[in-house]
């Protein structure tokens, strides 16, 4: 039962990253690929109807984590206090930048929100990557399963670690380039003309850095967290996840060369999902390893809610999520997969 919930939380989180990832990525490239107001409206219109629905996945994944693994939720959220608060502020700034940009047509107002949109998107991508890096590396847990991380210490990965060290920064950068590519492919699919041409170019450049950083990060991870390599050898079927990632990455390149944007984008989704699934399998049954004594690490058994709650949760969670997926299939169909014109009055 705990394992099942581990998988469901992982699926919800992966769905969040894949979905909100493309609008974060669109934010990262916003200033670069769109040079004038007309082009910028195209980028915003490409994510307009979707981005806030995508963020709901963060809430749903967070709520699910809270319900299924309350001790993990309380330990991780209080321990990562400072970066989480900053993530909240960045999410707010980004939301208001998207929503409020179109309300006044002024050369002072719009560029301001464009810069906020790009800056907040880029920082969020790096923060989310660094957060994943922290979870893989492990944190300085005490016997009660609590910790509190400063933003940085000496940038080393052993002992008194901070949020940022050379490993988590590398993962942050990998997240940044991955979401840049992801967002660029989405924008390329949803737009035409100059914006599309530039987005494809960004995606091609990003692709090489994704390859380089993926190799580097994988090597570092196997070295820092031996659990990951051991788990993949233990569950050989699990090598399907890294294989999916590699195949998807190759696929992204092939479709990018042929300018088949939608297919390239779907390959990018596969790459992200495969990487996250590999990380989740690599950590199992840990959900938050310890950077000191390995036995202090938090496992799914130690942090799960009571058996009745987990069983009851299953009864409503799965139908509820299917229902939610139904709304979105309806919504995406209704607005069509075609290019979407800006809905807000841009007066």
């Amino acid at each position, binding site marked *: 039962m705990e394992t099942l919930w581990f998988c469901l939380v992982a699926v919800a989180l992966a769905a969040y990253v894949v979905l909100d990832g493309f609008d974060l990525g669109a934010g990262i490239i916003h200033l670069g690929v769109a040079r004038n107001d007309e082009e910028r409206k195209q980028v915003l219109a490409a994510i307009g109807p979707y981005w806030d629905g995508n963020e709901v996945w963060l*809430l749903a994944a*967070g709520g699910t984590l809270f319900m299924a693994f309350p001790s993990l939720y309380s*330990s991780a959220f209080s321990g990562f206090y400072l970066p989480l608060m900053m993530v909240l502020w960045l999410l707010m700034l980004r939301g208001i930048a998207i929503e409020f940009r179109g309300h006044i047509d002024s050369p002072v107002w719009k560029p301001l929100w464009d810069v906020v949109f790009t800056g907040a998107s880029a920082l969020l991508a790096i923060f989310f990557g660094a957060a994943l890096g922290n979870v893989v590396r492990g944190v300085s847990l005490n016997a009660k399963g609590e910790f509190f991380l400063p933003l940085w210490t000496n940038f080393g990965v052993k002992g008194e670690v901070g949020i940022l060290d050379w490993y988590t920064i590398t993962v942050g950068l990998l997240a940044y380039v991955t979401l840049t590519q992801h967002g660029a492919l989405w924008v390329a699919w949803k737009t035409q003309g100059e914006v599309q041409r530039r987005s494809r170019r960004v995606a091609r450049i990003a692709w090489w850095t994704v390859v380089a950083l993926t190799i580097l990060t994988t090597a570092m991870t196997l070295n820092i967290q031996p659990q990951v390599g051991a788990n993949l050898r233990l569950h050989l079927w699990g090598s399907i996840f890294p294989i999916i990632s590699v195949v998807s990455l190759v696929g992204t390149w092939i479709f990018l060369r042929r300018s088949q944007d939608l297919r390239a984008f779907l390959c990018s989704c596969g790459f992200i999902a495969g990487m996250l699934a590999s990380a989740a399998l690599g950590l199992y049954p840990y959900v938050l390893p310890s950077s000191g004594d390995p036995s202090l690490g938090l496992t799914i058994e130690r942090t799960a809610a009571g058996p009745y709650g987990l069983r009851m949760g299953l009864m409503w969670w799965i139908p509820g999520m299917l229902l939610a997926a139904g709304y979105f299939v309806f919504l995406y169909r209704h607005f069509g997969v075609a290019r979407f014109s800006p809905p807000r009055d841009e007066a």
Partner: protein
Amino acid sequence: MDSAILLHRLHFAFTITFHYLFPQLTMGLALLIVILKTVALRKNDQLYHAAARFWGKIFAINFAMGVVTGIPMEFQFGTNWAGFSKAAGGVIGQTLAMEGVFSFFMESAFLGLFIFGEKRLSPRAHWASAFLVFLGSWLSGFFIIATDAWMQHPVGYSLASNGAIQLDNIWAVLLNPWAFWQYLHNMIASVVTASFVMMSLGAFYLLQGRSTQSGRIFVRTGVVAGCIASALMIFPTGDRQGKNVATYQAVTLAAMEGLFESIEGAPIAILGQPDMEKMRLDNPLVVPKALSFLTYQRWEAEVKGLNAFPKAQWPDNIPLLYYSYHIMVGLGTIFIAIMAVSTLLLWTGRLYGARGWLWVTMLSLPFPYIATTAGWITAEVGRQPWLIYGLMRTDQGASMNVSAGNALFSLIGFMGMYTLLSVLFLFLVGHEIAHGPEAE
């Protein structure tokens, strides 16, 4: 009190108070928009369609504010109240996750459809999207109230050997007797806020002499809905909620009413200031025996005063509790008066020309917000010193590993961020109001 705990409390109090300025409008407004759409559909009246469209825009801005300020609420259970989340997450995680899964997806999907889809949808489908936004937001309210009600009156749980509070019966949590009346009281309060806002803006347009046809629709809808809702606030929902407090939190009732000594035939205080040094109510203006009657339906019944309870169980800020409760009840009474006069004028066909009274209705705008906020302060300060009533004290629930300095850091950050949000919000709403309902 330890300063870290005080800061964690202020952190939650500040962010939740600011957050709830927005949902209290949107939940009620969702219902009023459904009503406007229904009339529009039945009469095929373009003005009602325009009114629904206009309020849809106001709704969307408030909804966006509610979402961006709501995300930190869910996070704070983990970040600032780790002790509480660790112990009780098995129970309240259920209701909070239900809110995410059942309400947020529905609201965000159909709000998009309602705002952007009017031209593409059939009128009936557009009505249905408005209805689903309403349903989603009222479901969302229910799950939050069920969470709060469990903290006020915990049910359906058992204690595990490691001290964790485990869920035993999900139906008991969802059908908590506290939740039922609190939910109705809260949702009708939201309708009161929305009605006053609609009426007030309608009066503004009438007084300005522009968009007067829409202004009349706003005033009419606001007055009719507000009259019904204001009455329901006091009876039965407020009355029954009060009886819940008397049954399950008797010491809170004594503190709310400023009743220091137990007494038979207890009076109800209309005015007066609790004096915590001399343990009495200064400058009291009371109605004799009324409290006994309202609580127990007998004029001579005994009501327990604060002296009947050990001091360790008293709410830790009795004056704040007393004042917020009295502000809520006082304003609630005034709302009935305003709505009764407005209904009478509407009935006799004089309301749209009664400029003096239109001024009163226009200026009444902030008061439902104050009343609702005061009501929530009553509920949550009244719960003190408990985080989960009778089960966990507030000072046991905060994150021990987050120091006072770090809590202050993020509190200051939120204050800055919310100041910015307030400015942008007022600006945008002002922009829509200046634009008017009959544009396009």
